[in-house]
């Protein structure tokens, strides 16, 4: 039981750190809040942004929280690999630099896993395999689909 948990803990810690580094250039890892009692202890994510001291993911800025959360979610993926991810405007509080890194990470991961993301920023769609426009007309939603250059109006069946 303890061995299973510690193996999970180490693995997620390493993977979250890998993705955090890809997104920010910094380091991240998991810590046990109470290392004496590993079976009951809470878990904290510690992040070290470039040029800054390490801090808990709870005490950082809005954009910093967004990149840390994405890194953690990706880190969890190692254990329970999903065939698709759906993100709804996770880039809302990110600046241009982090948004660009996020788009690059999503593109890279999309070779193995389907990544569907909602975004209002052009940067996120620059290297998309498919762009889906959703808009409202006469009180109902309509869809326009663009695939690498061609535009297809959603066929109303």
């Amino acid at each position, binding site marked *: 039981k303890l061995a299973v948990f510690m193996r*999970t803990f180490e693995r997620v810690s390493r993977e979250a750190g890998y993705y955090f580094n890809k997104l920010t250039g910094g380091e991240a890892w998991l810590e046990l809040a109470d290392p004496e009692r590993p079976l009951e202890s809470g878990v904290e994510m510690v992040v070290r942004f470039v040029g800054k001291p390490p801090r808990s993911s709870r005490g950082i800025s809005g954009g910093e929280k*967004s990149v840390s959360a994405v890194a953690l979610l990706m880190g969890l993926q190692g254990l329970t*690999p999903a*065939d698709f*991810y759906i993100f709804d405007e996770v880039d809302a509080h990110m600046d241009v630099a982090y948004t660009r890194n996020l788009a690059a990470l999503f593109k890279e991961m999309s070779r193995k896993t*389907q990544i569907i993301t*909602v975004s*209002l920023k052009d940067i996120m769609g620059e290297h998309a395999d498919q762009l889906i426009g959703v808009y409202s007309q006469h009180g*109902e939603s309509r869809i326009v689909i663009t695939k690498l250059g061609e535009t297809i109006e959603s066929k109303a*069946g």
Partner: protein
Amino acid sequence: VYLKKIVINGFKSFGLRRNVIPLEKGYVVITGPNGGGKSNVIDAIKFALGELSAQALRASRLSDLVYEGNNGQRANLASVSVVLDNSERALPIDKEEVTISRKLLPNGESLYQINGKTVSRSDILTLLATCNIRPSSVNIITQGAVLGIAEMSPEEMRKLLDEVA
């Protein structure tokens, strides 16, 4: 088991016509103006995968999920189908594609179908669990939820880790 197509009709802001959304396997970006219906597409996917809580679909009651247009126009039922790619037979069904459908009937009941055959909700959940797919799992992040993930208390983060272990 990636998402190949979503068909929405009468669900939230999607009106009476059949809205067909084909999805690529790689990197898909959904964009458009505020209030267009982007998050409703994600709610539609969760709905089809068996999500029971109206709040998780950003509605007060399940009946709020049925399309209501201008001039009191209302759909009879809310219907969403999700077509999953099954070329690698990851789902224990011998077909290239598997279609999961859910219709919210006027009496408030939900009708679930796999490839057109009526099944129970637990049949759907059991089938999807073989591929780690659940209506509210870590791989679907709704709008505004990302800040809360970084603000999790140590106890909550521990629970999340235990869930995936």
